[in-house]
């Protein structure tokens, strides 16, 4: 049970590629699941007979969530929000990775823009919400733009640092053999930077979800943010909790999906770890390499 740290599976990474026996898998699941299940049960019991106005029974909240999804307009809200996130994030990825590759490769450009980029990242995109929504209106466009604006910086900066993390020897070799830049980009630079790019997209995703909520709370006739705002200000507490829960689940599910995509695309990267067996156990990458800003 009490395994020394170097025998432990690293965080956020698949175990090894060797198939796990069913019993091991079950054991692991039990170890990881007991606490969340316990918390859920405690919440369920603690609120069971609740007459408190602010904390309705969890079962009521879940019932409300289900009926709103099935019969109410919550599903439309969900699709509206999801579409904005997908569009904004996709746009930010294309622009961020493109610009990041160029900035990472060209030394002069990188040196010149470093403070500007750091400043841009430190500027809260949430501050732009009133400015953008009040001038550009309450439609879908301004929200996609805001999500794009917030997600751009982590992706861009991580791409730059990903390009930088490719060993100089690799660079020299690729250059020395005069490999055409197109091929170099596709076969050397992009794959080398990809792990970091994904770390950036992960950070960007959490920012995107927050900006989705904020922009919809601030001014929108539809969307999840609008749903929790409306129900909150009209004191429909169960609906508010239900909407909040849905956004939380959405945030979690999206990040898990992204991790799955990452493991598929970066299988080679994660597999490389066991190659240095006991000599120097490489700890997992820290949870968030770049600014884990929530906004």
């Amino acid at each position: 049970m009490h395994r020394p740290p170097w025998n432990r599976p690293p965080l956020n990474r698949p175990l090894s590629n060797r198939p796990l026996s069913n019993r091991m898998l079950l054991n692991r699941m039990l170890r990881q699941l007991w606490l969340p299940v316990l918390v859920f049960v405690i919440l369920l019991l603690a609120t069971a007979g609740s007459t408190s106005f602010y904390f309705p029974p969890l079962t009521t909240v879940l019932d409300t969530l289900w009926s709103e999804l099935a019969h109410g307009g919550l599903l439309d809200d969900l699709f509206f929000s999801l579409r904005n996130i997908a569009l904004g994030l996709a746009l930010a990825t294309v622009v961020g990775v493109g610009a990041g590759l160029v900035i990472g490769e060209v030394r002069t450009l990188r040196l010149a823009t470093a403070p500007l980029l750091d400043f841009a990242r430190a500027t809260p995109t949430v501050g732009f919400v009133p400015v953008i929504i009040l001038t550009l209106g309450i439609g879908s466009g301004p929200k996609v733009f805001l999500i794009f604006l917030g997600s751009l910086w982590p992706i861009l900066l991580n791409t730059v640092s990903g390009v930088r993390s490719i060993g100089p020897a690799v660079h020299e070799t690729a250059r020395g053999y005069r490999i055409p830049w197109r091929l170099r980009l596709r076969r050397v630079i992009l794959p080398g930077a990809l792990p970091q790019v994904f770390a950036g997209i992960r950070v960007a995703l959490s920012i995107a979800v927050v900006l989705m909520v904020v922009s919809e709370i601030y001014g929108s006739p539809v969307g999840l943010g609008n749903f929790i705002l409306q129900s909150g200000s009209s004191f429909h507490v169960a609906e508010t909790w239900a909407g909040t829960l849905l956004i939380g689940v959405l945030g979690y599910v999206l990040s898990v999906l992204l991790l799955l995509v990452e493991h598929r695309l970066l299988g080679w990267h994660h597999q490389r770890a066991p190659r240095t067996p006991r000599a120097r156990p490489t700890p997992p990458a820290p949870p968030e390499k770049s600014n884990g800003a929530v906004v």
Partner: protein
Amino acid sequence: MVRVRLLQLGALAAVLALWALVTTLGAVSSTALPGPVSVAGAFGDLVGTGVFWQAVGDTLRGAVTGLAVAVAVGIPVGLVTGVYAAAEESSRLLTEILRSFPVIALLPVFLLVLGSTPGMKATVVFIACVFPVLLQAQYGARSVPPAVHDTVRTYRIPRLLRFRRVILPGAVPSVMTGLRLAATTSVLVAIGVEVLTTLPGIGHMIMESQAAGASDRAYAYILTAGAIGYSITLLAQFAERRLLRWRPPTHPGEA
């Protein structure tokens, strides 16, 4: 070094010039993006006023309170879960779920339950900051090399001493990274809360200025927020370098 600074100034000038060009050509309406000159003017007017400093103070107070509580809770919990595999495994799923929960989505609920108070702002900041601190502390505690662990175990060093002399120093670099992340996050979240509520602070001033039709003032506040975030990053980097002089930098690219 001088050449680099010149380059950076050049890039700044280029961005400002581009900004001025876009606004004078009228490509975007001046309410969406006022020119750099008028924003600078608005900023100059603001700096002398008490309202401005009051707003900055309100934002910082909320951010620092939330951050302090997050550090007080996050570091011990992170270290303990980092040392004991069972604790880490049991809490992993829960922290994963809570971490990916967008805090701002809790705002309507908090508004209902806690009301629009400075305490609510600090609470939201706390929730946003506790996870970066906790996870980095956990990661730091786990990064103590196995050889060190073996040695400590063999010599039967008491638990408390082990925590204080082995795990804590080993985890400090990673904890510092967590602190840096959390510090920037705290200001951002505080401003986010202010934008959406009636709580005083920079975020509220941005909203108010924009609603009053003074875009240049709104932008002046936004840039102030950026400057605060940027200075926190620089300060944290500086502190990190000073405090951790005893060890070589782990992320050479980050310096």
